[in-house]
């Protein structure tokens, strides 16, 4: 067993803080019946629950990628242990084969040979130009290179059977939870009689398992999504991109939330000059087109980072801090919408009679805000949180393309697309990196959008 040193990046801290907050809010919801009924409505929404299952799978990947460490280097016993400069995560450890088995350069999905001709010395003959064999992809086939399809199909089939077995076990557990007797539970699930949309969750889970298990089984033998310019496995890059997307989508909203909520409520409740000042601030910020504001802020941040290299001990730390700074910048440019919404809603709420009743008792303003106004605005905050997520994930890709996104060394959907897009012009085109990144992003964003719709329907009775 190698020793290791745990590394807690700032973004890790925020991610786990979010998880803790999520659990805390969950407990709070369980204790507050009005909130619980709204969430039950979300739970009854089939599309919503199916997309939640997909999101959960992504989040799981992201969480595994948020446990960082530095491995100990081999050294003589008795010496002070040295740690590697490279910061790895639990996901890296799990996907070690994917991470380490790099080829020389591009290779197609399921290929056994490189995508470019090279001059190879063949023993006994002169050097020839040919497509060299890959170091890892399809190595187990040996001479039988042409059997890729049969071999892959057979492996996929075996994995599929395993996935099916695993799914049956999960479904059985769900049935046991639903009914006293698992047969009854089973029937209730499939007839859609359960309050929670178990059938949707189970179907989605089945599809995920059927997709993911064969994929990972195969990825041990092939580069299922191919390799990129430096020969790195594309599947591995996709997995690493998930965390970046999640952080951008979640932390940004978290950063802007306190400010938007506080200023929005204060402006709406106290009105007068407080309102004027807050409105002025958000109109000014709103006036600057957001891409340009982000561009300017990121440029400035880059100057700060580049002129202070002494602040960061590892490249990972620098990339991480740049990611967080990006979240802050995105947050500052996007809080105005929520703030305006909350201000308007507070203006309406403060005229409601229960607020006036509280005022008639002489309840202090801050207590009214916390007890009466904030809880009645929570649904707007929650809806904003889930609605913003997908937009932010998409924005990351665009910003990284423009060059004002995450650190170029950090894997993200945006950097993947940016690195791969020029290769589409090659003859024949190198398409797999792009397709993999777009497909993964599409699934994540679609799930987020559908989940957001379910949440909005459940919390906003007015919405159509």
């Amino acid at each position: 067993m190698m020793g290791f040193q745990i590394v807690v990046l700032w973004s890790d801290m925020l991610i786990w803080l979010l998880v803790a907050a999520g659990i805390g809010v969950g407990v709070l919801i369980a204790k507050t019946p009005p909130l619980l009924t709204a969430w039950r409505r979300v739970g009854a929404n089939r599309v919503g629950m199916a997309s939640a299952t997909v999101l959960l799978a992504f989040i799981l990947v992201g969480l595994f990628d948020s446990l960082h460490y530095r491995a100990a280097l081999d050294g003589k016993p008795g010496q002070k242990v040295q740690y590697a400069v490279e910061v790895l995560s639990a996901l890296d450890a799990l996907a070690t084969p994917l991470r380490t088995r790099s080829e020389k350069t591009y290779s197609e999905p399921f290929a056994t040979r490189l995508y470019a001709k090279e001059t190879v010395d063949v023993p006994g003959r002169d050097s020839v130009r040919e497509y060299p064999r890959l170091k890892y992809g399809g190595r187990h086939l040996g001479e039988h290179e042409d059997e890729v399809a049969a071999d892959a199909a057979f492996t996929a089939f075996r994995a599929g059977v395993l996935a099916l077995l695993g799914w049956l076990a999960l479904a059985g557990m769900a049935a046991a939870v639903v009914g006293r007797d698992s047969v009854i539970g089973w029937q209730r699930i499939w007839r859609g009689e359960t309050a929670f949309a178990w059938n949707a969750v189970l179907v989605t889970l089945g599809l995920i398992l059927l997709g993911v298990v064969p994929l990972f089984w195969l990825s041990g033998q092939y580069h299922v999504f191919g390799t990129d310019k430096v020969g790195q496995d594309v599947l591995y890059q996709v997995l690493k991109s998930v965390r970046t997307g999640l952080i951008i989508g979640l932390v940004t909203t978290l950063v802007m939330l306190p400010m938007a909520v506080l200023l929005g409520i204060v402006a709406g409740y106290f009105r007068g000059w407080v309102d004027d000042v807050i409105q002025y601030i958000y109109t000014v910020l709103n006036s600057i087109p957001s891409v340009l504001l982000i561009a300017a802020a990121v440029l400035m941040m880059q100057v700060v980072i580049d002129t202070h290299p002494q602040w960061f001990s590892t490249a990972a730390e620098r990339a991480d801090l740049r990611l967080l700074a990006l979240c802050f910048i995105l947050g500052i440019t996007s809080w105005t919408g929520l703030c305006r919404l909350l201000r308007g809603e507070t203006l309406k709420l403060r005229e409601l009679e229960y607020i006036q009743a509280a005022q008639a008792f002489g309840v202090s303003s801050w207590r009214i805000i916390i007890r009466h106004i904030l809880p009645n605005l929570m649904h707007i905050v929650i809806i904003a949180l889930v609605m913003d997520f997908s937009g932010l994930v998409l924005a990351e890709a665009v910003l990284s393309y423009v060059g004002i996104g995450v650190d170029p060394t950090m894997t993200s959907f945006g950097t993947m697309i940016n690195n791969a897009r020029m290769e589409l012009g090659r003859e024949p085109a190198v398409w797999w990196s792009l397709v993999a990144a777009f497909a993964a992003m599409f699934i994540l964003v679609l799930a987020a959008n559908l989940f957001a719709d379910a949440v909005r329907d459940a919390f906003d009775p007015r919405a159509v």
Partner: protein
Amino acid sequence: MLAYIIRRLLYALPILIGVNLVTFALFFVVNTPDDMARMQLGVKRVTPEAIQKWKAERGYDKPLLVNAEASGLAMMTETIFFQKSVRMFVGDFGHAEDGRDIAREIGSRTGPSLAIALPTFILSLIVTVSFALTLAFFRATAFDFWGVVLCVAMMSISGLFYIIGGQYLISKVWRLVPISGYGTGLEAWRFLVLPVLIGVISGIGSSTRWYRTIFLEEVSKDYVRTARAKGLPETLVFFRHILRNALIPILTGIVVVIPLLFMGSLLTESFFGIPGLGSYTIDAINAQDFAVVRSMVFIGSVLYIVGLILTDISYTLVDPRIRFE
């Protein structure tokens, strides 16, 4: 009416000043000109003399806010704040890193930007509003359901995909139009078709859904019930009553972006090699040309504020309640 517009214009002034202060703070207070010089010249091998020279060439060697060495009015004018921020109000944006006059460059680049942005804007509006109106008309049917599904799917696709995919399919595989470039005169349309088409398609998802929500909100209003109780056919109810009322919230969203069309689109222009303001901005960002980025931030804000004022004016055209106040 005139007083209303003048009042709106006066409201815009403090906002413009605020924007100017924000950009000033962002570009000169967060980082000192020394930092920028060090960054531009390369962090490692840089001498104080080189920094001084860099600053002097660009007029960054003055004090930030108050020039204690000068006297009289020059105390205020011989400063970075006055030279670089205040003078933007009169359209003096200074010079880019390559020495060209930014104001002139901007003037010559608005044409290509508009050539893409304006057709995209108008076509999108027509397509999405009619699609949304159709969906709302057939609300709660299978057509509506699958239309919404299509919208959600389309808005879940990255804008980059539309551009890259469109370029690949139409220009590379089918070879219908050139991949990128820009021409003048009659030939220009061959370069414009693809970016405009992609711009329209990539916006369909979210805009249609938004307009549909607005239409459906109007459908449930009492006056619609009155219109139906008159025996009007459903098409008339939609085009005469609902569309007119829905125009008010729709205008809020669209009039404000009309002036911003001058700025062009960052992504489209850079992908298609259009020599407009969008690609100008992107090039400036990549070259870390602070003067250009600063100018674009300011111009963008001015155009946005103009959009706000136009929105207010357009209200008076569609909403009699405001017109008669």
